[in-house]
Each structure stands twice: as C-alpha cells, then as structure tokens.
C-alpha cells in the first residue's frame, strides 16, 4: 500500500491490593489496521463480566475518516520528552504508523482537561488528549451500532 496506516492505543490502570505491595492491572486497548479491522479490548471486570473483545471490519469510507482525524490533529509534530511519566495509577501508550513514519508515546493517564494544564507542555498534551477522546467516542458509537441490541419497546 502506498499510504500505510496503523494505530494502537493502550491504557493500563493499576490498583493496589490489600497488601499495599502488589498490584492488579487492567488494560483497555484500541487497534486499527490499514485493512480496516478495528478491535476493542477491555479486561476490567466491570460488573463481574469477562474480558471484552469486540471487532469489526470497516469499509474504506469509514477508514478515511479515522485517518483524517489523525492527520488533522498534527500529532506527528509533537514529542514525548517534556510529558509526565507514568505513575502509580497507570499509563497511556499510543503508537501510530503513517507514511512510513512511526511514532510512539508513553505518559500517565489524563482523565480531565485540568490535569494537563499544570504540565510543562500543555498544548502538546492537549493534542493527544483530544485525539484519544475523539477516537474513543467514534469507535464506541461504531461498535455499539453494530453489536448493541436496541431494547424492546424503544422507538
């Protein structure tokens, strides 16, 4: 392929056991390949469920929109050096391949926009934060429309 594309986002969350010495970790990952395969994995046992794995093949018209989302955010102009490192609560990791360029970042978890305003590079972290949130919401709405049943009785 002339224009390669690969994206992987991974969020690892850690929780302390009662020992206060050992950890339990959960991972949430989103992966998009150049053929259009999207997989969503979540190993947190929310409501005692098993590990969630959802995947679907996207058509070219939808894949173009994801690639455009990544291109417009200008994330290839950012660098990792002044961003905060992963801490005791977890980490965010993102890896993108586009036009034979490869990028990978590793930082801590940002849950709301006030957290990255205190860092040394707030504009760079904002680019990553809004890209991740937009991707998550877009892929959630795609997967829900494919695999979530509408409750009986709703219009």
């Amino acid at each position, binding site marked *: 392929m002339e224009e390669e594309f690969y994206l992987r986002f991974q969020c690892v969350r850690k929780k302390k056991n009662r020992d206060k010495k050992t950890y339990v970790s959960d991972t949430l990952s989103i992966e998009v390949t150049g*053929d*259009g*395969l999207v997989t969503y994995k979540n190993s947190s046992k929310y409501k005692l469920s098993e590990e969630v794995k959802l995947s*679907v*093949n*996207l*058509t*070219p*018209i*939808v894949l173009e*929109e994801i690639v455009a989302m990544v291109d417009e955010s200008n994330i290839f102009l950012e660098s990792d050096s002044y961003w905060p490192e992963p801490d005791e609560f977890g980490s965010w990791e993102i890896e993108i391949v586009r036009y034979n360029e490869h990028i990978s970042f590793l930082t801590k978890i940002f849950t709301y926009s006030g957290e990255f305003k205190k860092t040394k590079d707030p504009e760079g972290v904002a680019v990553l934060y*809004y890209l991740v*949130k*937009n991707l998550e*919401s*877009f892929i959630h*709405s*795609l997967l829900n*429309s*494919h*695999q*979530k*049943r*509408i409750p009986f009785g709703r219009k």
Partner: protein
Amino acid sequence: MSLPKFNPLKSINGWVLFFTGLNKDLDNNDIYDLVAEHGKIISCKRILDVKSGKFTGKALITMEQKVQCSSIIEQLNNQNIFGSTIKVGFAFMEPPPKENLYDY
C-alpha cells in the same frame, strides 16, 4: 476510478450506513427527513466533537433492509445537500479473504 469491491455486513439491528460531509447546522430531525422516504429508520445518530460539543458532519443510520440502503446510496452519494457535497456508504463489511501463505 472504481473503489475496491466488498460485501456489506448486516448488523444486529439492521444495515448501517455512514454519512460524511453533512452541513454542520443539521439536527437529527433534518437527517431523518432526508432518508425517511426510503423506508423505516431504526436509529439515527450524529457524531459530535469532544472539545466543542458541535456536530462534525458524520452520522450513522440503521435501516431495516439492504435494498433500502442501496437506493439511498444511489440517490444521495456525491450530491449537494444544504450546501455541501456528501458521501454515503455502507459502514461494515465482511472480512477480506486471506491470501493463502502456502501457495507457491
């Protein structure tokens, strides 16, 4: 230039279409009216931007039958509606056939 061919895939509630390039002032009811004459709509969802909360121009619509979807694509693909050209297509497809690694 023809697009690569694929087989559309049926979702759990129906057949899902993806719209791009819509006018950003549109509401759910306007999108509903665009498509209502072709058949019964099961759900209609707009995709919003996280930072500003505004409409991005993309939407997902589920219809009941495949024939209704293909008639929508014939009528509305690459047309100018409310001042902007839109694109319409199926959203999900069957997995492409794997090339056999052991064919010499």
